[in-house]
């Protein structure tokens, strides 16, 4: 009973270019699925444009208002120019988390490659936009206000290191949460199967199944929460780029 078997990549359509493996894997399939789920949801929800929204349109409006409030409250008015990017990030991560909760699917955000790609992109966006907007005044971010000079010598490397560890913590938080949840669910399911196959212990078999149900509810909460936290922290880091200096 290997709980990590669910994370293995399987090539659906093998394709090699000069020995480099670029085949269409199940990860690619689920990425397409998550992206198209997000696109179809927003297109169908906003196709009617009724003044009094129906259920689908209300869902899209709630999603929009939620992300817009988050961006506006953390990054201010100027942060709204990043709203399309943040909305895309939030919807894609939410969709890939929710699709991964369905049994027998492949959970995308449990791959460190994907989450690190997002986090590295956010970091690059912060650095490049900060430099574009404020020039080298962006480096004021690492120099807090009203700190005497001897402390500054130690403080600036600490600030730089903590800034560079942001993509690491952002990506590992999402990745490890989803990974841990799915492994726990698989282990509990394996427990139920093992109990059923052990003769007289089969009477205890409903207990792990109950555990799976409870854990599933927790996983639902954690997945949605982690998508939200990734988005909020992205907005906070973008706010650092827009208004550097403490």
């Amino acid at each position, binding site marked *: 009973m290997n709980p990590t078997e669910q994370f293995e990549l399987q090539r659906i359509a093998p394709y090699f270019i000069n020995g480099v493996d670029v085949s269409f894997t199940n990860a690619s399939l689920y990425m397409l699925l998550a992206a198209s789920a997000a696109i179809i949801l927003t297109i169908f929800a906003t196709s009617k444009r009724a003044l009094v929204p129906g259920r689908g349109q209300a869902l899209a409006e709630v999603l929009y208002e939620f992300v817009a409030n988050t961006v506006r409250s953390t990054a201010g008015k100027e942060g709204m120019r990043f709203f399309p990017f943040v909305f895309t990030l939030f919807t894609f991560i939410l969709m890939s988390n929710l699709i991964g909760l369905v049994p027998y699917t492949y959970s995308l955000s449990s791959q460190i490659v994907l989450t690190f790609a997002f986090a590295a992109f956010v970091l690059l966006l912060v650095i490049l936009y900060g430099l574009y907007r404020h020039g080298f005044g962006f480096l004021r971010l690492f120099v807090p206000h009203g700190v005497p000079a001897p402390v500054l010598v130690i403080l600036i490397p600490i600030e730089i290191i903590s800034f560079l560890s942001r993509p690491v913590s952002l990506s*590992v938080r999402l990745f*490890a949460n989803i990974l841990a949840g799915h*492994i726990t669910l698989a282990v509990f399911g394996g427990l139920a199967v093992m109990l059923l196959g052990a003769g007289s212990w089969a009477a205890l078999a409903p207990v792990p199944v109950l555990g799976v149900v409870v854990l599933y509810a927790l996983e639902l909460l954690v997945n949605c929460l982690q998508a939200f936290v990734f988005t*909020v922290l992205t907005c906070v880091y973008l706010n650092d780029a827009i208004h550097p200096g403490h």
Partner: protein
Amino acid sequence: MADVSVYGPIGAGLAAIGTGAAAIGVAIIFGNYLNGALRNPSAAAAQFTNAIIGAALAEGLGIFAFLIAILLYLKA
């Protein structure tokens, strides 16, 4: 000698203690939030988002410890 199949699971168990520390951290954040919310209920809703962000940050560090435990367990 220093065999990973012998000491790996021991290390995994030690690393998983970090998840208990994360639970304490999250409990401190929400405990303080509830404390403040009971004193000033009208200001509580505005700070709920901050409480969730703080809890996610604290839990993230505990997840790092759990990740190390998983990696060691899978290697051994």
